[in-house]
């Protein structure tokens, strides 16, 4: 086969771009799950982030404010999840699904008047001409600021969970919420903070899609990326570094299949389009079949409802 039409440097640079929404959403969900909460509403929070980010950018003309708006909008939705699951003790799976269904609806509603618009593009950073360096330039020194932010977030989450006391408390809450409560830590407060962080990250991821990658608003434009982000958290065995690996792997597959489509290979377009989903499933199977190792590393309180009975 002829891969001549596919430039590997551009491929890597663009896979970093394509991966960023998933990476952001997954690193947020990782923190949520480490606190013992399973929020299946990532897709909903992403799409709400995508639309609020888009609207905020159009209305203010500033992509930076757009991203801020996306984070706020998705956080607000995440807090609905928080109130329902932490205060009203609703089932986390059902509430997460509800969040996704509601998010898809409300985003379509909000985005109606914005469907045909375009936003001012946000510039990439160029690092004083370092972007001109061959190979490394386009990959390392010529990305959108949010791409750098996503990488910083991975490092920050890793550092936070591993070395800080609040990070340790968050892990403790996710591991055994009764014991954490008995030691006097606020289970609900910790989880609310984690849920809000997860929402903000998912929102940023959604906005990156509607403001940078596409950049346009269309209904349901996240197209399952939220679910892939959830799968990546499992793939990563709840570890920050592996989330990065997983996200870039899937970003790579998406970019590659798009390139193959564009290059006109004799593979049905539909087969290429479904490949990221199929490969996600395949990887999930490989990870989970490793003698229950993945499930053994899941936070022990994941998805369980906490109510201090006294």
């Amino acid at each position, binding site marked *: 086969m002829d891969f001549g039409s596919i430039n590997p440097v551009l491929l890597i640079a663009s896979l970093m771009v394509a991966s960023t929404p998933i990476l952001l959403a997954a690193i947020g969900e990782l923190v949520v799950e480490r606190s013992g909460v399973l929020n299946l509403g990532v897709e909903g929070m992403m799409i709400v982030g995508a639309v609020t980010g888009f609207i905020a950018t159009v209305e203010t003309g500033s992509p930076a404010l757009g991203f801020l708006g996306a984070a706020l909008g998705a956080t607000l939705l995440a807090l609905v999840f928080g109130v329902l699951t932490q205060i009203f003790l609703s089932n986390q799976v059902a509430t997460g699904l509800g969040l996704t269904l509601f998010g898809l609806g409300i985003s*379509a509603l909000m985005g109606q008047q914005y469907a045909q618009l375009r936003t001012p593009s946000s510039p990439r950073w160029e690092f004083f001409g370092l972007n001109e360096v061959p190979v490394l330039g386009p990959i390392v020194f010529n990305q959108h600021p949010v791409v750098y932010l996503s990488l910083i977030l991975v490092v920050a989450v890793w550092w936070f969970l591993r070395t800080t006391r609040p990070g340790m408390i968050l892990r403790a809450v996710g591991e055994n919420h009764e014991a954490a409560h008995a030691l006097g830590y606020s289970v609900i407060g910790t989880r609310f903070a984690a849920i809000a962080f997860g929402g903000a990250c998912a929102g940023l991821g959604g906005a990156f899609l509607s403001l940078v990658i596409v950049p346009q608003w269309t209904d349901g434009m996240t197209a399952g990326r939220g679910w892939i982000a959830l799968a990546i958290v499992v793939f990563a065995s709840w570890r920050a570094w592996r989330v990065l690996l997983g996200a870039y792997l899937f970003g790579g597959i998406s970019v590659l299949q798009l390139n193959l489509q564009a290059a006109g290979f004799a593979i049905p377009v539909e087969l290429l389009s479904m490949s990221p989903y199929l490969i996600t*499933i395949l990887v999930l199977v490989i990870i989970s079949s490793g003698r229950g190792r993945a499930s053994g590393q899941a936070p022990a309180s994941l998805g369980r409802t906490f*109510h201090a009975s006294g």
Partner: protein
Amino acid sequence: MQRGPILIRLEKRAAPSRVWAWATPLVAVLMTMVAGGMLFAFLGTDPVAAIRTIFWDPLFGEFAFFYRGQLLIKAGPLILIAVGLALGFKAGIWNIGAEGQYIIGAICGAAVALAFYPLEARWLIFPLMVIAGALGGFLWAMIPGVLRTRFNTNEILVSLLLVYVAEQILAWMALGPLRNPEGAGFPGSRNLRQYESAANNELIAGTGMHWGVVAAFIAVIFAYVLLSRHLTGFHIRVAGESPRAARFAGVNPTRLILFCLGVSGALAGLAGLFEVAGPSGQISIDFNVGYGFTAIIVAFLGRLHPIGILLAGLLMALTYIGGEAAQATLGLPAAAIQAFQGMLLFFLLAFDVSTNFRVRFGARAPA
């Protein structure tokens, strides 16, 4: 929740409140109407008119004769899918990919019909289509089922991701193998409603009653008996309540997972088949309209109880029809109804707390 000056406290009830178990859906519907009305007002639509257009006019308004038939057409697939999903949800098995099973069921059923075209033999073709539809949905649901039982892979994620795969297959089918050769190059298959042996038309004109609705009613009865009397239904309930107690009772988790996913997949496949052979008529790129997802709301709104699902399915169908009416007469955006349905689920989940907890306001006054 015991410390400090707190405003709301929850006290676990010794036994779940039966009153609240039934009142919750009603309260949730009322609260959704209020909140939805506020949403509509925000969008610049008269909230009272909107609520009336959605909930009242389709049943009792000027054009009710037209809408009432639509009610069963929309409720049929919702109920059929939701009944199957509820079995799994009760057992703690989360098939959320019914939309994909619905698509595959429709494709399989339509493929059988198109393979026979233009042979006229309804006694053979229609039953074969039904079997193919159910089998297609069943097999599609078996993918997460087998992966879960063989490799312990999370069925939530797999079933959902397979929806996107199914949508791609649908697009491929509509553009490729199942495309109408006489369709002047337009995507989409032949219209099955015009093919006597395959058509799933109304059984009684004007009622919307077709074979899919009949199947939905049968499924409700079947599920009701299963859950209330049958040993398997009992095992489903125990497994959902407490997986360890189920194991102690002798429930085989593998068989239970395959049963629940298989039944819900087959029912979703059936719903797809009846839809493609009836109301929709053809395989097209946008054949699926989200019944598989809305059915999740229907299942919860119906308390995972077959009779409740019957009522919830009708109510949800009403919001679809009323939503379309409101779109036509009041210019309410189509997406509003989807948001409205999501809101309904939120309120339901929020008020559900009353079933198991007593909600007290204000801290206990120190004596």
